[in-house]
Structure formats: structure tokens, C-alpha cells
């Protein structure tokens, strides 16, 4: 990474300067570190989705899972030195935005009916 980025006229000088000041563990970030953060975000998203009952929080948890996948895609893209991962992330962001628009519309609709965001109030359908 040092050699690769040092060649780049855009970031070369800046990075070598920063790396001399950084602690050693941080300057040698491996793919593992990124994947660990991504997996933690994904797990937190699932746990939050299953335990929280507020509709907006539940939606934010699915967003967290989307971004976890995005982080993994970018890390893998950097690892493989191709752009498939990064272009995938652009599309993921688009879909996430579309879902956010729909989620907020639904939440507003529900709030008008029940004056609450508690998912448990919506239990008319059972069997």
C-alpha cells in the first residue's frame, strides 16, 4: 500500500507524513480489521432489528446492515484492486435511499392511524 500510494501524485506526500506519526498497529490495517467492523455492524443491525420495537429504530437497523455490506464491499474492492466492489456500493446506496423513502412514507401513514410508532400495536392479523 505504501508503494502504491506513494506513486500517486494526489496522496503520496500526505500519507507518508501521516504514517510516520501513527502507531504501528494502525498503519498496517489489514482486510481483517475492516471485515471485523463490518461483521460487527451487521450483527448489531440484526440484534437491534429483533429486539427494538420502534419502527424508525428498526428501519435504521436495516440501514446499518446495508452499510455493513457496503463497507465489506469497499474493503474487498481495495483488497482485490478492482472497482467492482466500489461500483456495487454506489448501487447499494441508491437502493438504500429508495427504501428510506418508502419506510418514512409508511411510518407517517402508520403514525396518522395509531399516534404511535410501536410495532406491537399492529397485531390485527393473527392466526
Amino acid at each position: 500500500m505504501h508503494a502504491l500510494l506513494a506513486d500517486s501524485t494526489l496522496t503520496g506526500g500526505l500519507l507518508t507524513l501521516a504514517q510516520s506519526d501513527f502507531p504501528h498497529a494502525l498503519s498496517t490495517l489489514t482486510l481483517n480489521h475492516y471485515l471485523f467492523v463490518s461483521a460487527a455492524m451487521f450483527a448489531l443491525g440484526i440484534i437491534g432489528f429483533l429486539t427494538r420495537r420502534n419502527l424508525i429504530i428498526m428501519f435504521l437497523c436495516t440501514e446499518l446492515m446495508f452499510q455493513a455490506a457496503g463497507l465489506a464491499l469497499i474493503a474487498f474492492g481495495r483488497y482485490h484492486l478492482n472497482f467492482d466492489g466500489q461500483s456495487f456500493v454506489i448501487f447499494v446506496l441508491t437502493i438504500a435511499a429508495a427504501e428510506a423513502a418508502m419506510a418514512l412514507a409508511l411510518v407517517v401513514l402508520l403514525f396518522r392511524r395509531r399516534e404511535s410508532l410501536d410495532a406491537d400495536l399492529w397485531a390485527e392479523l393473527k392466526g
Partner: protein
Amino acid sequence: MTDKLALVWPEIWLFVTTCVVMVVGLSPDLRVRKLCGWISALGLVVAIGAAVPVAHAGGLFPSITPYAKGMIGVVGLMLLPLLAGTVDRDLDAAIESGKATFSALRSNRAEFYAFFLFSLTGLMLTASADDLIWLFLALELTSLPTYIMVTISTRGTRSQEAGVKYFFLGALGAAIFLYGFALIYGATGTTDLAEIAAAFRAQSEAGGLNTIGVAGLAVALIGLCFKIAAVPMHMYAADVYQGAASGVSAMLAFVPKTAGFLAIIMLCGAVGWTHGATHDSLPAPIYILLWVIAAATMFTGNLLAIRQSSVKRILAYSSVAHSGYMLVGVIAGPGSGHGTFWDNGIAAVLFYLLTYGVTNVGTFAVLASIQKPNGEEADDIADIRGLHGTRPHLAGAMLLCVLSLLGMPPLLGFFGKVGLFTSAISAGEIPLVIVLGLNSAIAAFYYLRIARAAYLEPADEHVETRAGPIPQRVFAAVLSASAVVLLLTVAQMLMERSVTASGYHAPHAGMADTPHEALDLTRADD
């Protein structure tokens, strides 16, 4: 570029139709607005016409396009009359009697038909996907419109509740399979499905599949279980099918399920059915995962269906069970690749999707054609008691469709199920075949209960059902029931088509243009 364009002509035509429908549906003239359904039908016919000549495309399943898109178009055409009158019925009546004036903000017809066509466009795009990014976008284009269709399908709170449940679990499912896609990309370094397959093949020859790749496949398959309503993501099915209008429920039972199965077939095709120790099968972790999901889905769907008193919930759980049946075909795989329909699991799944889609329209159309005195569609099993006495053609349609879903010879559903059985037997999956047979027997309980209510039980006196005011839905029911019988005459041809469609282009390791070294997680990036 032009090659890719030639592949997506059906989708382009459907998209153009969608734009036209979106404008026409907002016309102040009621007669013009009512053209929406006809224009959608025309668009679907053109799309089928554009799909049939596409003989050979890229990707792992190069010949899947004509069969899959033709099937999607035909079932879409059958769903159209069933969806008639789902939205805007009260508004149109009020306008015709002069009590209200047209307001574009209160009318939902344009969006409803446009979202229906958008969803089918996404489904067709799924069929021709050859890339993970494409596959993800196509799956989302299939799903996003259905969330809104469920929510606006009736004016009551029940469909809104159904829409919320469907949307939130759908977003969860999408996030899960997206994470799986990310891991697959990480393990292979490409998003192209054929190159992924080549990379997996190279890893397998070099000593074993990458752990991250297998984990990614497993996560993606679990996420896709939402689309096909399989365990562990089946909980929403009954609530959503019951809360949505019958026409939309029928659509939900076909469109996302087909998208999910196409995606599962492609992902399984990317890793290949050549990893078994004793016989050819998927890699052991994926094989065990799919095996458990299939068995659990069949038992869960069928056992829960027995306990229901609502016909819609019975059909929802039976839809869960049908997903379990079809997973058996996925596990069995395409066989030798040169065989007939009877030992090709993928062809069996593709044929089963067609029979299920065609038959399923009929059961929901019968429910949609019966209106209770309070204006709601029939739902409870009491609502169809004595249907034979009051409306014999609807009872007949229900009987034929239910028996076909059950797999009674010589109806269409029988041939779909036999294909699953024989392909699983020739792949050596005897325990799974026993589970499949057992579940087909359990299913007879609740299917015959529906038939008995319609034919043998007297109508409840306090439940008065009267003819629905929408003749198109009766037409959809009769159309579906006659298709269950008439398609038998071309069943041989359809089976041959599905065998052609399942033609699996097994990749070889030298195909990828980049070397795929083992993934070393601790390699510092320098």
C-alpha cells in the same frame, strides 16, 4: 453492448408500457383511465413476443431467457384480470354517480398498474442476470413495488399492517442477501457470475472452497428465503397474504417466489453441483443448509396450514410448503446435463414454477370473486361453504385448482411434482423424497377441506355471499382452471422447453482472466 440490449428488449418494452400507464391512469376521463389494464396486457404480450426469439445469452444459464420470460409474461397476463377493480372502485362509483370529482391525488390506479409492471420488469431482469450487481438490483426492483401494492390494495388498516410487516422483513432479507453477495465478491474478486463460478472451480481444484465464499453463499441463501417464503423467513407470509387484497396475494405468491428461485438457482449454479463425496451435489455446508431449509419449510408450511380457518392463510402456508418442494429440485441439481426432464432438478423447478403460478391465480381469483355483504372479499372457510349450490362455475374452478396444487393426476400440478420426485430419486436423495411424499400426503388434509367446504357442506345461513360486481375476476378464475386442464395438451412441449432452459453452462477453471490466489485475511496491504 448491442448483445446486452438484445437480451433486455422485453424489459425495455415493459418499461415503456409502464411509463404510458402511469400517464394514462391519471386522465380525468374515466374511460381513458380504464384502459390501463388493456395497455398493460398489450405491453406484456409484446414483451413475451420479444423474449421468445432470444435463443442464447451469456451467464451460467444461457438459454433460460425465453422460457423464464415467457412464463413470467403468461402468468402476468393471467394476474391482470384478477387485479381488476382492486383500487379506485369506490372512487369510480362516486364519480359516476356525480357525488365526487376526479382528483389525481386520491386515485391510485396509475401507480397500481405501473408498480405491477415494474415488478414484472424486475422479475424478467432477474431471469437474465449474469452479474451480482444486476441480480441485486433486479431483486430489489421486483420487491420494492410489491410493498406499496400491498399497502394500497385495500382501504382498511389490515392491508397497511400487512404492508408494514412485508416491507420491514423485506428490507431485513435484502440486507442479509446483500451481505452474502459482498462476501461472495470478497472470496472471488469479481461480481460476474460466470467468473465467480470459474473462481470457485479453481479454488475447489486447488484444495477446497474458500471459507468466506461458502459463508457468503449461505448468508445469501438465507436472505433469499424471504423472497421464496421459506423457513426461517416465512413468518410474514400468512399475515401479508391475508391482509392484502386477493389479487395482490396471488401476485405475491408468484412474483417474489419466482425471483427468489431464479436467484437461488444462479447462486447454486455459480458454485456448481460437483462437490459431493459420494455423488454429485452442492458443497457440504450449502447442501446441509438447503436440506434443512427444504425439510423444515415443507413441514412448517403444511402443519401450520392444517390449523388455519382462513382460506387465504391456508393458501399462504401452502405457498410456504410449495417453496420447500421446489428446494428439493434445487438440491437435486441439473443431473448429468444431457438427460431428460425426469432427472433434471432445475428443469423440474422451472416447470413447477409455471404450474404453481398458473394454478395459484385460480384459487385466489375464486376468493376475489366472492364478495361478503360488508363489501370485503371472501376470506374465511365459512365464506365458501355451499359455493357449489350458489355459483357452480366458481366451485368447479376452485376444485380443479386445489386438486392441481395437491398434485392429483392427471392435472398440471401432478406433472410438476413428479418431476421433483424423479429428479430427487435419480440424484440419490431418498430421505428427502420420503419427506416430500409425506408432506404431499399432509397437504391433502387442508386442500380437500377447501374442496369439501365448497361442495359438500351447506352454506351457513348467517353468512350471505353474493356475486361480486367484477366479472373480470370470475374470468381469471375460469381461465386458470381451464389452463390447469388445457396446458396438459402442451405439457410435453413445456417440459422440453424447461429442459432447454435449464441448460447449465458449467464453467472451467481457466475461464477467469485474473488469477485467484487464496484469500489471505492477514495480508497487510502493501
